[in-house]
C-alpha cells in the first residue's frame, strides 16, 4: 500500500543559485500527482529533493522538510533508506548494460542482502508482470542484457527494477518523453494500474499526459508552486492567471 508524501517549505539551491522557493505540497497516498511547468521551473529539482537525489550534485543544498508517513526524509534518516522507500524512474531509461534482465530487476534486492534464489525469482516475476513486461521477456530473462531491449521496454524494465525493492512512493521524471507514442501509452496505462499499490508523482512537460493520468496536478513556475488542484479543476478553471497562461499555451 502506498503512503502519502508531504513537502513543507522546501527550498533548494545549486551552489548560490536558488531553484526552489518555499514549496509545500501534499502528494496523497495511492493517487497520481503530476507536476507541470515550463522548462527550468524546478519540477525535476523538486522531485529529486523528495528522494534526496538532489544532494548528490556537488554544491547542492536543501532546506525544509519532507515527510513520508512517519519518516522524516531529511533530518537523521540515512539517504540509503530513503531511496529504497522512494523509488525513481528517470527520463532516459538507464538499465545496467552489463547485467541481464533478471539481474537488472534483482539488482536492488541483492544490494539489500536478499540472496534466496526462490524469493528473487518470485519478486522478479511479480514486478515484471506489474510493469507489463513479463510476457515479452520471460524467455530471455537471463540471456538478454538489459540494454538490448527497445526504449519502451527498457523504461518498463527500469520501472520493474524500481518496484522490486518495494518502495511506497514512485517518482517519475518525464518517464515517457524519450519514448514513442505506443510505448508512452503503455507507460501511462501502467501508471494508472500502479496507483492502486503505490503513490506516484510524475513530472511531465506534456499537459495532455497530466490530464490523462493524474488525479492531482501542481503547476510550477520559476521555482515556486503556483497552483495545486485536482487535475480536472486546474485544466478547466485554474485559479491563477499564470496557470491559465501556461495551460492555454501563451508561454512554455
Amino acid at each position, binding site marked *: 500500500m502506498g503512503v502519502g508524501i508531504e513537502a513543507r517549505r522546501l527550498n533548494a539551491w545549486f551552489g548560490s543559485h536558488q531553484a526552489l522557493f518555499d514549496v509545500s505540497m501534499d502528494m496523497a497516498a495511492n493517487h497520481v500527482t503530476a507536476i507541470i511547468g515550463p522548462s527550468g521551473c524546478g519540477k525535476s529539482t523538486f522531485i529529486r529533493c523528495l*528522494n534526496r*537525489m538532489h544532494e*548528490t550534485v*556537488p554544491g547542492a543544498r536543501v532546506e525544509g522538510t519532507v515527510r513520508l508517513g512517519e519518516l522524516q526524509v531529511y533530518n537523521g534518516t540515512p539517504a*540509503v*533508506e*530513503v*531511496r*529504497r*522507500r522512494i*523509488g*525513481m524512474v*528517470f527520463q*532516459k531509461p*538507464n*538499465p*545496467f*548494460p*552489463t*547485467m541481464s534482465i533478471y539481474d537488472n530487476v534483482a*539488482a*536492488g534486492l541483492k*544490494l*539489500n542482502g536478499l540472496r534466496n534464489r526462490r524469493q528473487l525469482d518470485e519478486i522478479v516475476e511479480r514486478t515484471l508482470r506489474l510493469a507489463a513486461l513479463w510476457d515479452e521477456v520471460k524467455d530471455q530473462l537471463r540471456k538478454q542484457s538489459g540494454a538490448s531491449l527497445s526504449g519502451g521496454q527498457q523504461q518498463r524494465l*527500469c520501472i520493474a*527494477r*524500481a518496484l522490486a*525493492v518495494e518502495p511506497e512512493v514512485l517518482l517519475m521524471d518525464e518517464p515517457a518523453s524519450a519514448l514513442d507514442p505506443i510505448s508512452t501509452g503503455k507507460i501511462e496505462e501502467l501508471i494508472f494500474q500502479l496507483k492502486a499499490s503505490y503513490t506516484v508523482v510524475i513530472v511531465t512537460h506534456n499537459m495532455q499526459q497530466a490530464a490523462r493520468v493524474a488525479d492531482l496536478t501542481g503547476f510550477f513556475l520559476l521555482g515556486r508552486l503556483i497552483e495545486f488542484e485536482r487535475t480536472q479543476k486546474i485544466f478547466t478553471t485554474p485559479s491563477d492567471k499564470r496557470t491559465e497562461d501556461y495551460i492555454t499555451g501563451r508561454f512554455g
Partner: protein
Amino acid sequence: MSEPALPVGQSGIRLSVVPGLKRKPPRSSRAADVVFRYGMLLCALSLLAVVGLIAAQLVLHSRLSLQQFGWKFFTSESWDPVSGDFGALPFIYGTLVSSFLALALAVPLSVGVAVFITEMCPRVLRAPLSFAVELLAAIPSVIYGLWAIFVLAPILRVQVEPWLAQRFGWTGLFEGPPYGIGMLAAGVILAIMIVPIIASITREVLTAVPQNQREAALSLGATRWEMIRVGVLRNARTGIVGAVILGLGRALGETMAVTMVIGNVPNISRSLLAPGYTLASVIANEFTEATGNLYLSALIEIGLALFLITIMVNMLARLLVWSTTRGVPARVHAQ
C-alpha cells in the same frame, strides 16, 4: 576556357575584389596545396618507414641466431657466450615473473587510486592528486633505478625480505639469502612505474561511465561503494582490463630500472628473493660487449621477441580501451 570575370577562391566561391588581399593565380596555389599535402603525407609515412625499418633490422640481424637455434632458443636455459650456446628461457621467465609481480602489486593500487580520485575524494584534492600521479609518470627509469639501488634494495634486504622469509617461507617463494637486489626489487620498482599508466587510463574509463548509471544505482538505495561497484566499475570492466594490459606492455619492455636491481643472473628460481634477468636487461648489459656475430645475433633475436610481444600486448590493450572510451588520449603517450 575563358577566365572567370571575378577571381574564384579555393573553395570555388566567387569573391568580390577585396582591397589589400593578395590573390594568387589559382594554378600555383593548387600546386602548393598538392605539394603541402604530399609533404604531410610523407611525414605520416615516416612512421610506417620507421616501424618497417626497425622490424626489418631486427629480423635481418637475428637470422644467424634463428638459423642456429630455431625454436630451441626459447626453451633452452643455457646462456653461455663462451661456448656459443644461447637460450632465452631464463630471460623470458624473468620478464614474465617480474612483470606479473608488478601487476599484482600495481593493479589494486592503481584501480584504488583511480576510484578514489574520480568517485570519492573531495573535489579540491582531485587536481593535485591527479597531477601527482602524472608526475610519477614523468620520472625517468634510470632515476627510479638509482633510488631502487640505494633506498629500496636496502629496505628490502634489511626489513622486508627477512620478514617475508619468516612469515611466508612455507610457500617456497622466499628462499635463499635476502640480497635486497633480485626479482622482488624488480617487481616492486616496476609496480611503482606502471601505476601511473594504469591509473590514468582507469580514470578516463571511469569518467566515461555516464552519470545516469550512478543515479540508477543510488535511486535503488545503494551506498556509495555499492553505487561504484554496480554502476561504475561493472560498466568500466573492459576498459580497466585494457588499462591493466597496457601496464603489462609497459612492464615487459622496461629496461633501466629493472636492470639496475634485478641482479642480472640468468637463473630460473622459484624464490622471489633470488636474482634474475629479463629480456630487456640482458640486451642492455651485454650488447656492447657482445663478441662475435652469433652472440650479437642472439641478443638481437631477443630484441625481436620483445618487439613482437609488446606489439601484441599493446594491440590487445588498445582494442579493449577503445571499446569503452573514444580512444587513448595523446596525453597518455607522453609516458
